[in-house]
Each structure stands twice: as structure tokens, then as C-alpha cells.
């Protein structure tokens, strides 16, 4: 029989609590209980990165992270990036400007991976960026414009562009 447990955590800056099935993934909790539908499911076994969210500053495949592990954690999904007046984050704008979006299904996961990477405030070479982004799969873009979007945002943040 299903067992339920109360999970209290902070999601996109808001303190929340809900009862979850102890077998549920964080993806399920975010999508079903909080309707955070930017968290996508492409494989549900940690292969594609479509479900990536940031947990206490670190990017995870939320599909292989149990919902109950989120207890006490700070979770950030793509929905958190939009400013109060609807302002886009620089990385979101870059995805638009660089034509890095096609079907858009991988986009939320890619942006969350990029957010964590950009927050390191380090300057990476294109090759290093490729390695850091390699946990996310995209079938539409050939990754080229995604790389451009992330690189340009990085350089802008570092004042080099």
C-alpha cells in the first residue's frame, strides 16, 4: 500500500508543504502537486536532463531524486527566473536571441543547467561548456545555438561582451 509523508520545502522562494507518496519522484511532486510544468519528463531515469532543477544551489535530475529527499531543501525551477514584472533572465533572453529554442522540450532543463554553471562566475572555454552541458540531450538544435546562448551570457556577465 502506498505510504504518504509530509514534505516541507522551499520552492521558488516560497515555503510549501504537501503529502507525497514516498515512492514519488521530485519531478512528480513538482509537476503534479505544484503544477510547475516547466519540469519536463523525457526518460525518468536520469538520462536526458529535461527534468533538471536546482536543489540547494546544485543542479539535479529531479526524476531520480525522491520527493521525500526534498525535505528542508531550497528548490528552484525555471518558473523562478522570471522577474516580478515579467522580466526575463539574461539566459532566457539569450536562448531567444540565439535561436536556441526549437520544440522547446529540452529548454527548461538546459536553462537550469546553465543557470548553475553561470552562477560559478567562471570563464569556461567552449569545450568546457560542452562538457558541463553534456548531461542534457536535445534532438532539435544540434546544441550549436544553445552553446552560443550560454557562452554569450557567460561573457556578458563577466563583462567581456
Amino acid at each position, binding site marked *: 500500500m502506498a505510504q504518504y509523508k509530509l514534505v516541507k520545502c522551499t520552492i521558488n522562494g516560497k515555503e510549501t508543504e504537501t503529502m507525497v507518496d514516498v515512492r514519488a519522484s521530485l519531478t512528480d511532486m513538482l509537476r503534479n502537486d505544484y503544477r510547475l510544468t516547466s519540469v519536463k519528463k523525457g526518460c525518468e531515469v536520469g538520462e536526458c536532463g529535461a527534468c533538471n532543477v536546482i536543489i540547494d544551489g546544485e543542479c539535479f535530475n529531479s526524476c531520480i531524486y525522491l520527493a521525500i529527499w526534498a525535505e528542508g531543501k531550497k528548490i528552484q525551477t525555471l518558473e523562478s527566473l522570471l522577474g516580478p514584472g515579467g522580466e526575463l533572465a539574461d539566459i532566457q533572453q539569450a536562448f531567444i536571441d540565439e*535561436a536556441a*529554442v526549437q520544440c522547446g*522540450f529540452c529548454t527548461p532543463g538546459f536553462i537550469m543547467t546553465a543557470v548553475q554553471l553561470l552562477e560559478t562566475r567562471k570563464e569556461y572555454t567552449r569545450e568546457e561548456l560542452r562538457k558541463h552541458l553534456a548531461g542534457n540531450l536535445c*534532438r532539435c538544435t544540434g546544441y550549436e545555438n544553445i552553446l552560443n546562448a550560454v557562452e554569450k551570457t557567460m561573457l556578458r556577465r563577466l563583462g567581456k561582451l
Partner: protein
Amino acid sequence: MTVGQSVPRVDALDKVIGRAKYTDDLCEKNAYTAKILHSTIANGIVKSIDVSEALNIPGVVKIVTCFDVPKFLFPTAGHPWSTDPAHQDVADRLLLTDRVRFYGDDVAAVIAETEVAAKQALEAIKVEYEAYPFVLDVQEAMKPDAPQLFDAYPNNILGHSSIRRGNYEEAIKEPGLTKFEAWYETPTVQHCHIENHICYASMEGNRITVVSSTQIPHIVRRIVGQALGIPWGDVRIVKPYIGGGFGNKQDSLYEPLCAYLTTQVGGRPVKIDVTREETFVCNRVRHAIRSHLISWVRPDGSFAARKLECYSNQGAYASHGHGIAAKGMNALPQLYPCDNMECDSYTVFTNRPVAGAMRGYGIPQAMFAAESQTDDIAIALGIDPVEYRRKYLMPAGYVDGFSKNENYFDTFNQCMDKGKKYIDFDRKFKEYQKQTGPIRKGVGCSVFWYNTGVWPISLESSSCRMVLNQDGSVQVQLAETEIGQGADTAFAQMTADALGINFNKVHVISTQDTDVTPFGTSAYASRQTYVGGFAIKQTALLLKERILKYAYELTRMPSFELDLVEGQIIRKTDGRVMISLAELATEALYSMSHSEHMTSESTYQIKSNAYSFGCCFAEVEVDIPLCKVTLVDIINVHDAGQLINPALAEAQVHGGMSMGIGYALSEQLLFDPKTGKTLNDNLLDYKLSTFVDHPHLEAQFVENFEPTSSFGTKALGEPPVCPVAPAIRNAILNATGVAINNIPMTPHILFERFKEEGLI
């Protein structure tokens, strides 16, 4: 003018903030989950199914087996329907089947309150099978004693077509000819769109609504009607944003079953959310085609005669069937015209996952055979491979007798010039021929041609509706779907220009709903911008005519002296702005004397097609002891006519190149010879290109305005994948002198070949 400008995608904002809704995002939380029980034998029959234990699992609502479902055989291919029975797709599927034809066939479905309960029930169902011998290899399946999949198709041959031109047997007697002969093998690969197929169904009144991740809503409506034996109008299909399709979703997948299941639970919503493993095994795959190509070549390189045999592995059901192998075969005589040709293609059932449409529709397979041999011939004769192509490729002015397609420009040479220059082909090709040592570099090239749409084989038509709002903006609707390629944006650009309003005043309704959206056959065959363009232009002109007629009432100027430019009604004689479209539109709706809702709607039937062309140049580094290929640089050059949106065109080419790189070097589905089971049905073991498998992808264009097209545009969606694998193969040949005729060119394949050639 916005056509030709790189405006941002109309859907980009919603997609980067996570607001774009895909099928699962729209489904009610309380929908039932349905899971499908797949067969664990590759061929045979289901003798009995015991669901008693499964039904006792808490949360299980209902179990439907192959013995319960209606027996209406239906076709699944996303083709326009034909009213001529001889041209209809093969109807060989049932919602669930007791005659199992591949490992993974659908035998029962569980409807449950939760996914966990549904999964537990699948495990508790007991199926008794009678297993028959099975066959996985395409040529084995053609042998007289092979297991037969369908009584109606002796030797498992679903289709056979041939070309006979001149006299092959006589032509090969010409003195001085050199014979080139090889077998080329291409693998079974999968589309791997990141969103798996998903759909949910529910009822309103006596009608069934299915929301689905599909490329082809209007076609799926017809197929659901056929599968359930109900009037087609009783079915409504809604297509929201989808996470890629690439041809897999150009088939009816689980919509018919889902529609049936909702009828079994009183019309309550039922969702089928396909897993990645099911996507690999139980959706569609690309046809593995084995080709045998013989060329008889004169000392100057010209072809005296050619013979081609293609064996296409259909898997267990007909789906798109023989069209794919036939299309691939037909590419060769047009690519390199030759007076004496004998071509045969066979599409053959085997007990493997079902092959259907996939980006390129037979042409990537055909180009691998054709363009590999082109290099073998050129090199053997000591002719530069690009110069060889210049001499023998389809010349400018060539017209195909069947499609009436014309090669209007010197496109192949223009494309190859650009590709060659980028990769520095001339210098490198010569230099790399002389290498020794363990690490060697190579450059290679390949060309292709592709059709735009399906005329004259099938219907080509598109319908469009435009509705004018009070502020002078318009809604535009087409059945041609946005599947990631950027169709909505291209349609908005074309509408703006054809009507004479600003781009930001065009609202493309992205969602197709068969109750509301005009009829059309949707996204496939790289047809959308070409075909949609005619309907858009015609509909815009009709709306403009209505607007200008109304403008006469407000301006007292004859409508033929008026025009609509950037949202203003202007007098043509002096260019004066008479009234804005916004003012006119408001007046038209609210006028106490003459109120009018300004709309237009029209269908355009297209009776033309257009050749799309291009090439790929690749540079590789081969580590001979490790048998490993690293792609160093790659460029695709395309002539897709006038580009509607260059930035999106470039992006689309990148995606196709990426798919081509995977096809060349890493992707293949493997099957257990003992059971027929798919061995690598996940994204770890199936090696789709990742971020680190690519160098920079260079995409360039030659923009020859296509004369038959209303906006000068033609196919671009599928073409980028077509030339990549043979270009990489030819680069490996340049590096090592070894011709590899099997893809993917993995270390396993290279090891065998390098050993044979004495390199290791």
C-alpha cells in the same frame, strides 16, 4: 517585409519561461493512467490471458485484453487518405492483438488510478503464448521457408517496385568498362524526440476528444474513427505544443487505443504516457535498408549501366510501408542520370519493431549507398571527387518526367563551391591522401536532393483561415503543425507580408483542434512552408480584397486604387494614408450602417513539387589503433530557395546535421538474435549525439528563389540529415584508404575493416 528576416520565434518566449503547454501539462490531475502490456515473444499467438490477480490490485480500474477489443483493422501511416482503395495504406493493426508479430507488441492494457498501480497490474497479468519461429533479417525473411507474418504477403514482401531504363544486360558488354560493386548497410535508428509520445482521451456527449503529441491531428482523427468503427466526426483531436516528432509522430501511435479506453470507463479521462523504452520499441523506427549497388563505369567516369537492389526492413507492421524504400531507390536515377538502369526495391516484414517515417524518408539510406560509391569510383579513376560530381550529377535544366520537378539553377555546383571553400577541400584532400602513422585526417563530401511535399504521389492541399480583430491584428489558423521546426513563425512572417500588416499584428494559433482548425494533412515531407505558403497567400489576398472593398465605403476611393501596407490603407496614386486598418476594422465591426466580421478562409490544392538540394563536407581524424573517428569539422550547404527566416533555417540545419552525425557514427538499435528483444531501448545504451560529440556545425545556404513557390521557398526540414553519413564515410576513406560500407561506423566496424585492409 518580414519574409527573409531572422525575427525571433513566436513561441520562444513561452518556451523559455516554461509557460508553453505540452500534452501532459494540460491533462487533468485526476485522469486515469493506462499502461500497455507488451508481448515477450517475437512471433506467435496469445492463447490466454489471466487478469484475475491483477484486477485485485488496489487502484486498478479495468483491464482490457486483445480478446476484448473491436476487430476493425486500421492503417497507421500519416498519409492523406485516398478514396481509391488501391492507394489506401495497409490496414493491418488492431488496438490490441492476439497475433503477436514482434517482441513488444501490444496485448493488453490496464487502466488504473495511479501509475504505480498500473505497473503492478502489468506484472500480475499472466499471458500464455504459443511461440512461433521468428525472423529478424530482411533477406532471411524473403526465403521460402521463413516464418510468415501475414498470409496476404507471401515471402513477407510488403512491396516491390522497380525501374527499368535502357538495357542493362547489353550495356555492360561495352568494352573498357570497370565494375564497381558493394553492399551498403544502414541501421535501425529511432527519432528520439525528447518528449515521448503521450495522449489522453475523454468524452463529451457521444464524442471522443483525444489530446495528443502528434504531428498530424486531422489524419489521426480519421484513423481513430477507423479503428473504433465510429463516424470520423465523432472524434476530436487536439494538438498542443509537442516536444519533437521527426516522423515518429507522423503515425497514429496510441491515440486509437486511448480513445477506446475512455469509452470503457464511461468517458473519464485516460492518459497513455509512453516511456522512453516504449518509444524505442513500440513506436516507429527508421527502416534499416541493405543496398546492393553495381556501377559499370567508362574510363572517363561516366556511367554505362547501373544496378541497384534495396532490401528494406519493415518490421512487424506496414505503417508507411514501401513508400520509403521506393523513394530512396528513385533518388539514384535522378541524382546521376544514366541510360541503362535496373533498380529493384523490396520492403519486407520481419519480427522487429515497426519502421515508419523518419526525417529523410529513405533518402539518408539511399545517399549512403549512392554517395559512398561515387567516391569509390572517383578515387579509383584518379578523379577529384568534387570534380567527378560536377561532371555527372543531375545537370542544371534537368526535369523529372514524373514529378515535373526542374533543376532550375546550377545549384549543386553553387553548394559544393561553398562547402569546399569552407573546409579547404582541394588542399586537404590531396595532402591527406599521403598520410602514414596512427592518427590520420581526412575530408569527404556528399550531395543529395529531396522533394518538397508528396505531390504527385498523394494529395497536397492546405487550408487557412484569417480573422481580423478590432485593432487590425489577425488570427491565422492552418492545419500545418508547429513541431519545433518553426512553422508558426514562418507562417506569421508570410501572413504579414501577404496581407500587408506588421509581423507583431499576426497571431498564429498554434494549437490545432480538428473541431476548429481548417482541414489539412499537417507536418511531414518538409512540405509546410511550401504548401502552407500557397494557402496563406491566397487567404491573405481574399481578406485584403474584403478590407479594401470596405475601405471604399470609408474613403470613397475605389478599392482598386487602394492598398494595404504595414497596417495602413494607402491610396496608390499618391501613397497617402487614408485610414489605418485598425480604424477600419473597428468601424467595420461596430458600424450602425454596415457591420461586417472580416474573415477569410480558403483551400489551395498544390499540383507542383520542388527539388531541394544540398551537400555536406566533413573533416575527420581517425585514430587507427583505437579504431576511433573524431569529427573535426562539418558544413552543410542547402538550397532551400528563399529562406523565410535565416536564423531558424540555420538552426534547423544544425539539428539535422546532429541527427546525421549520430546516424554515421553511433546510433543503432540492437536486437537479441535469440529472442528478438530490443537490447538498447534507453538513452544510455542508444548513443544519440550529445553535446560533446559535435564540433562546430556550420550551416550555409544558396538562396535560389524557387519559381514554383509562392514565397520562393522549398524543403528544408528533412534535407539536412541526408548527406551527412556518406560525407563522414568518405572523409574516413580519404584518411585511411579504407571504404566502410556499414553505418554506424563504430570502432567494432572499423576494427574489422582495418584488420581486413592490413592497417592493424
